[in-house]
């Protein structure tokens, strides 16, 4: 690992000042960044730890909105129990020790195509709150490892409208335990949203055809005959495009059946 300067600001304003220099990078829980740095595949000159910023910690449930601080760990999100789909998703990321360090802001900023949180954010129509602005999830995700974030911008919180019912189905890639395919289904009064992670070369996406059908008939049977286009799916040693397309349909059905 290359060396770097380390700073641990206590508030967002100081963090932004620290991040303003060239080659500075924010450090969330480090569960992806640190292994990457060990391989010398990332070489920030300065790491700005967000773990000391108390205003970015915690889960607040007010009315139909859950607001999660950007530096909140997966374990604490799971513990908060805001709603079924989110709790299950957060409690199933990585492993217990990883969940104790990894953060929602880190996950969403990285936007790994097989990460779980992007599915929750997109399926709930979340608002990604930064130091500077609020970004709709539909605008935030821009392809694998690509987001709407500017260079010096920190996810301070994520706001999710709480669905009537929801569920996240993850089919684990057997080695990494990331999502080979993960499907988040969230049902709201005005319709159903379905977000898929792990499957597409373009990162997380909404399966709008299924959303349309499920919005009028929220049952697994309703999507039985449907399929997603496999042409832009990921193909690797763990599964072909066609296999992933199959999983999208199967897991969507299971998420609908299990939604609570």
């Amino acid at each position: 690992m290359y060396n770097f300067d380390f700073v641990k600001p206590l508030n967002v304003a100081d963090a932004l000042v620290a991040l303003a220099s060239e080659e500075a990078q924010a450090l969330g829980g480090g569960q992806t960044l640190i292994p990457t740095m060990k391989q010398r595949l990332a070489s920030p000159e300065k790491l700005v730890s967000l773990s000391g910023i108390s205003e970015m910690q915690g889960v607040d449930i007010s009315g139909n909105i859950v607001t999660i601080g950007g530096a909140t760990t997966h374990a604490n999100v799971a513990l908060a129990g805001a709603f079924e789909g989110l709790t299950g998703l957060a409690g199933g990321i990585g492993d217990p020790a990883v969940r104790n360090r990894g953060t929602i802001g880190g996950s969403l900023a990285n936007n790994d195509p097989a990460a779980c949180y992007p599915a929750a954010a997109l399926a709930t129509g979340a608002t990604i709150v930064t130091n500077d602005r609020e970004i709709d999830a539909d605008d935030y995700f821009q392809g694998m490892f690509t987001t709407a974030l500017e260079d010096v911008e920190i996810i301070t919180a994520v706001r999710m409208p709480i669905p009537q019912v929801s569920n996240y189905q993850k089919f684990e890639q057997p080695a990494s335990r990331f999502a080979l395919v993960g499907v988040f289904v969230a049902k709201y009064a005005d319709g159903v949203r379905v977000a898929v992670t792990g499957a597409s070369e373009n990162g997380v996406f909404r399966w709008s055809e299924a959303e349309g059908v499920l919005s009028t008939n929220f049952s697994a049977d309703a999507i039985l005959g449907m399929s997603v286009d496999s042409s832009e799916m990921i193909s690797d040693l763990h599964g072909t495009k066609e296999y992933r397309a199959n999983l999208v349909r199967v897991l969507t059905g299971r998420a609908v059946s299990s939604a609570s």
Partner: protein
Amino acid sequence: MPKDSGIGTSPKRREDIRFLTGNGKYTDDINLTGQSHAVFARSDVAHGKINHIDISAAETMPGVLAIFTGEDFADVGGNPAGWLINSRDGEPMKEPKRPVLAYGKVRHVGDAYAAVIAETVLQAQDAVEAIKADITELPAIVDMEAALAGGGFVHDEIETNQCFDWGWIEDNRAATDAAIKAAPHVTTLSLVNNRLVPNAMESRASTADYDRGTGDYTLYTTSQNPHLTRLLVCAFVLGIPENKLRVVSPDVGGGFGSKIYHYGEEALVLAAAKKLCRPVKWTASRSESFLTDAHGRDHVTKIELACEKDGTFIAFRTDTMANVGAYLSNFSTVTPTFLHGTLMAGNYTVPNVYVNVKAVFTNTAPVDAYRGAGRPEATYSLERVIDKCARELALDPIELRRKNFIKPDQFPYASAAGLEYDAGNYDALFDKLEGIVDFGGFKARRAESEKGGKLRGLGINSYIEACGIAPSNLVGILGARVGLYDAATVRVNATGNISVMVGAHSHGQGHATVFPQVVSEMLGVEENSIEIVHGDTSKIPFGMGSYGSRSLAVCGSAVVRATEKIINKATKIAAHMLEASESDIDFKDGKFSVSGTDKSVAFGEVAFKAYVPHDYPHDELEPGLEETAFYDPANFTYPSGAYACEVEVDPETGKVTVESFTAVDDFGNVINPMIVTGQVHGGIGQGIGQALLENCTYDENGQLLSASYMDYAMPRASDLPFYTVDHSCVTPCTHNPLGVKGCGEAGAIGSPPTIVNAVVDALHSGGHTHVTHIDMPVSPARVWSAINS
């Protein structure tokens, strides 16, 4: 009354205390005063011509002490193959040199072409990045079939990628061919035995020290066999006199075969320590382990089973390509041949067996013995084709096996593949299996699974393996370049406690607990008064280490022989002390007594007399009570077993879940049931890993795709069930003093076909009868593809 100590009991492992409290001492835990650090520059291409390696910039980097390249070792020896295999035409195998550092060419991703020694690891890493390697990439030779077709060579000097073309038994070839041609039924199966990465949780590490005053070297290294490592380093590679090199293998965090072999890193740190007159330490990262540890398996096989319509076996014919990777690792040539081909008769009275194995060089990491080593490959081929045959002939898979089993009254039995099985009772194993597993309730369980949308399958398997390698005379005829005895020294100290120095090496097997059980039983002394010493060539007799399930069968036998010598000598001393004739002395429960009298002396008193030899028969006996024995086995040992498992398959996702797994093994006599059970558990875990999860994959450019735990699926707790393990069926080995056979590899040998047989059974129950085979790992994606093909 049940025994509470000695043979057949399960004392808690004494070594556990230090492991559970963080006081284990593994190689990387050892730090020597003044130590420096080695980091290797490794090829990122699979195949390339080294034009020039420019170290000038790296040499001037902070903290850099020395840099080595292949040229520095051009004149020293290569790391040899331990076994000469002759091809069918009588030609010896091709043996290109395996240098300490790549020279002329790099031959696999991870092949080290330079090493930096620096004050710190980080400085060495920085300097490695500053080395400018001018390497012209060449087309990678990855696929075995393409490699055999030629076009480019991994080793230009041998002008072929074929290491050997071996036939076993060549004289049986014509008869086997004829028998298959004439047979009423032939079942054919093409399969791949998937390449695996051993993945001991402790990665390899080596630290060398050199004493300028005495010229003595010390190497601390993660080895399963310190004497073998010393021999290879001294006699073949660096030419250090054996008596000037001490090899220490302290606590070793698992081996599974991968730590049998001598690796170039060990030679490098030794040479560097001498050059710098400073200790030099190297510890592999997990990424380096993936790229450079010897991998396992990697066979492409076609097997044919010829039989009568009633299922009576007539012949097995096997055609295998075995990948040996870019260089011959020490046991790489014997693993696909004598450890594989000789087992191709299984537990069966089949009269005709012929095996052809072509070993192939490719631009991949070396492939060598991994838990089971050849025998899992043999068992998998046999038991998969037998299962397929049973389905084709609509025979019960257990009945088909039983029909062809060697019967108890046929032992010793000369198998058609050239081994003499000394003992076994395969029907008894299946009797036991049928007693444990509720086969009758399977239909109901299958129906229950189907209610949940799942398909349930039942897999059956039988295996035999050859362990306790091996008779030196026999293996010498077959091409081995080393002997395969083991050795033990029993030292009774003056105060009566005992040190036992063994050639075997424990890296999880519990020798520190088990060997004292044997000695305690024989001498009638407390187990806790006996200490095992291992893993240090300066302390132990010349032994060959632990692999091939040999520790107890071979080294344990040496312990018995040395202890017998102790008893013999102690009896003489006791006779003198008791003023009786030696022939009148009885030894029982730690006491020497004169038969028919109440005169006796305790073992401890005799020991004291041996070391304080006042009033001692010096004209007849030497003082001291210490004996060494070397034991060379008369034959292999032949553990066998009957396995069953049930799996559920989710037809929508292809995911396979192991619902139950039962292993019934005949290991001969069992010294410590707890440890034997643990060994079987571990083997099953690895076997299920091979069957369902693990897949070492290179792309067509020779890049390792499964190069970390992100892509190489290790079995985890949530992938596995509780197992039912039984080893109460015992046919003792007839030719070693303990009647033991070895248990370390059985689980890994017996479980892969059990799982795959069950998956195929499940798919058939769901109407997917077009699926006759799925290659391992039987991953969800593969199962789904098979269903939907």
